[in-house]
């Protein structure tokens, strides 16, 4: 059995949490105190420095879900399944952050919160896929067939990610495209650095959350196995 945690893993995890907190604080400082205000949109453009990394975090969560799901389908071990669940949780939360921050920016930039733009639509679709994954895992049992069905969803759900990425390039739309053209849309070096620091902070943030959620699901499976064992030994209800 995988134990609750080894000391070495705990130390690495703690270091990662501290790094995440420091990068977050530094990126907030850089975004608000150093990066210049955008000429056309004004201060509301600073939402960009967290809006895009939120979606980047969703990509990381979705990638973890894909890898975990593929691993579970191939190997059938719960470590992969826990990774997939952790990744899906993070994809949902960071996707929700992106879906909330985007329309708040759009109210000012476009004059309306939402349009059925290709990138917005495909992003919403991807978010809903991971919501469906979480709902499936939350409301069905933990049997092997449910796990396999969810793993198939985790693998197929990742197919939408490249479509989100290339939707702006292929189909146009209103969504800004300052990153896809090599970051050339960010006209000031401090804007590029602010975006880089936020992206690093959200990378650590997503990794920490995926790790933590996956570990929790792993322990949950252990607990369920032990409860089953206790039931068979006649310890139920003690």
């Amino acid at each position: 059995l995988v134990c609750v945690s080894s000391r070495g893993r705990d130390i690495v995890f703690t270091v990662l949490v501290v790094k995440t907190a420091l990068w977050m604080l530094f990126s907030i400082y850089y975004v608000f105190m150093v990066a210049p205000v955008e000429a056309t949109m004004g201060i509301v453009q600073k939402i960009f420095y967290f809006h895009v990394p939120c979606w980047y975090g969703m990509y990381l969560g979705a990638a973890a879900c894909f890898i975990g799901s593929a691993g579970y389908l191939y190997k059938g071990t719960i470590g992969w399944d826990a990774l997939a669940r952790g990744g899906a949780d993070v994809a949902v939360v960071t996707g929700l952050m992106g879906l909330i921050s985007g329309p708040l920016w759009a109210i000012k930039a476009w004059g309306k919160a939402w349009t059925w733009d290709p990138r917005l639509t495909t992003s919403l679709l991807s978010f809903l896929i991971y919501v469906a994954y979480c709902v499936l895992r939350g409301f069905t049992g933990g049997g092997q067939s449910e796990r396999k069905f969810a793993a198939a969803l985790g693998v197929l759900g990742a197919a939408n990610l490249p479509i989100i990425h290339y939707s702006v390039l292929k189909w146009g739309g209103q969504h800004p495209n300052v990153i896809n053209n090599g970051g050339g849309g960010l006209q000031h070096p401090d804007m590029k650095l602010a975006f880089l620091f936020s992206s690093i902070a959200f990378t650590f943030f997503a990794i920490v959350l995926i790790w933590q959620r996956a570990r929790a699901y792993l322990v949950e499976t252990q607990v369920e196995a032990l409860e089953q064992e206790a039931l068979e030994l006649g310890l139920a209800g003690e």
Partner: protein
Amino acid sequence: MYPMLQQPNPSATSATVGDRSQEFRPDTGERESTSGEALLVACYAIIWILAFALIFSSVRKQRSLDDRLTRLSEELARARAEGEKAPGKEKSKPKAREPEDLDA
């Protein structure tokens, strides 16, 4: 030649050219009522509330699971020890099943 006309500010032009040729609308000042600062603060507040909600729910879940795991492990160890002391009693109980795939 006329960059301002070629790339109008989207927030400043809510009506299309066709609309403008058919009707005149009074300026209600709605655009000005949406403060960029307020939107920015709302956005960051929501992001951090969501982040901390996930972190706290994860920590609580992990703590309760760790507690359950420790308690169950102790109870099982005690039951196994009692079973070894009374072998006759142990035979009547089903053998503890190994989890199918916990070797991850």
